[in-house]
């Protein structure tokens, strides 16, 4: 059952990721990206971590992509037209993708991951919270929030009109 769901959603994730790149219309690309993120979230849920799965949807598929779409629609971005030199860029993109695939595949073969199922582990919400707020990660966690706050202040300072 889990295997069927995994392969189904993995296929959807890869397929819609291809659409993100291949689609000329930016709004369709954005929607394909949302589909990719949602199917990744299902994979997280299958791995036994509903908390991460839900966060994936809330933060990426929800909050960030809404902003993307808002900007795309506000600026009324048109279909991408063929620009000169597009063929070369496309070729280089394919080459980079192939090399990345090769490296990943080589890594997988060299590291030789065990074929056994992942041992049972506790990835529940409570466990996640305990780990995040343990002395080990607490300062990193707080530092991240300060980083986000700084970004926020910076964005407002940039967007603000001088009186």
């Amino acid at each position: 059952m889990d295997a069927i769901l995994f392969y189904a959603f993995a296929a959807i994730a890869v397929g819609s990721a291809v659409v993100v790149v291949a689609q000329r219309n930016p709004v369709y690309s954005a929607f394909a990206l949302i589909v990719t993120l949602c199917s990744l979230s299902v994979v997280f849920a299958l791995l036994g971590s509903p908390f991460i799965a839900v966060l994936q949807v809330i933060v990426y598929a929800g909050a960030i992509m809404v902003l993307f779409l808002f900007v795309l629609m506000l600026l009324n971005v048109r279909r991408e037209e063929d620009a000169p030199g597009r063929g070369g860029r496309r070729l280089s993109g394919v080459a980079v993708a192939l090399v990345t695939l090769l490296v990943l595949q080589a890594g997988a073969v060299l590291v030789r991951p065990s074929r056994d199922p992942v041992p049972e582990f506790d990835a529940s919400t409570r466990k996640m919270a305990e780990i995040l707020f343990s002395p080990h990660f607490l300062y990193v966690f707080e530092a991240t929030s300060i980083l986000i706050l700084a970004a926020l202040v910076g964005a407002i300072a940039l967007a603000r009109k001088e009186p």
Partner: protein
Amino acid sequence: MSPSPLVQSLVLASVKIAVVVGALLGLFSLMTWIERRSLAFMQFRLGPNRTGPLGLFQPIADGIKLFFKEEVMPAAAHKWAFLAAPVVALGTALLAVAVLPYGPPFTLPRFDFLPGWLWPEWLKGRPGQIQIAHVDVGLLFIFAIAALGVYGVVLAGWAANNKYSLLGGLRSSAQMFSYELALGLSWVGVIMLAGSFEIADIVNDQAQRLGGWFLGWNAFVQFPAFVVYFIAATAEVARIPFDLPEGETELVAGFHTEYSSMRFALIQMAEYINMITVAVLCANLFLGGWHSGIPGLPSEGLPGFVWWGAKVAALLFVFIWLRGTLPRFRYDQLMHFGWKVLIPVAAVSILLTAAGVVFFPRLFEVASR
């Protein structure tokens, strides 16, 4: 011989889905009638009263009419997006419904007089609850689905390739994004008190406070959060006074201007189901769910369903009442209210709750962890 547990749970889940979705669709058509009649009475009109007794068959007539109407698609529309948008809207609306508990837990009756193939042994005396999926992170799941719910509206507004629709879609994305924050923050205090994301736990947590009296419900203990939730929820389902995405006096009909026939009905259905979800959630999180609120009065089994149903019905009526009473916000007022009033109030409420939970755990009867 009883079937394997997987088959048992699949059968039960299918039956639950059929019951819940069937009930929601019935409630949706009933709601359209109740809303039109109540609004009419508030405005000294009669409303639809000709089709059937008291006009009760009006939703059926409306449904038949919408079925046989011609479907119009604008020539310049983005075809696939235009077709997909109502499905996305209804799909996300129905997804959120899956993790809500509907009424108290109960045990299935034994029904010994029924034949074995109709009421098999494994069903007899089985504990159950009308809740399709028990998710460890129920409340967060609803938040995630609410975050996705905006795409139906945005897609509909963009796909029609109409200026009014696009403006409606844009307004909707900005509005939902702003009020979602307040909505999520209003839940934090409730979650902290119950120590759980699961909605059924939050319901039962309220019942053990103050000896089971209704003053211990989150609506009173978490009063600011309750007010913030109700306002933000009204904005999330884009009802008056927050119906700027539709705003018929400025935008014709906003994001669904170009929709007709059954696709229009799908969008309408999604809106009503979202409204029901928000009301059910409010009854469960803040109004004690299926608990009577008066010690001594039963809240298990059938009486529990009655209490729960009465709370949901009252909340739904408040939504209609608001529609008959309030004017629409101006756009700058909407943004100001969301960001500068609701969010700070919710944040202060969270701080106070956190202090209370840490320093006076006995006062709030926080479950020991």
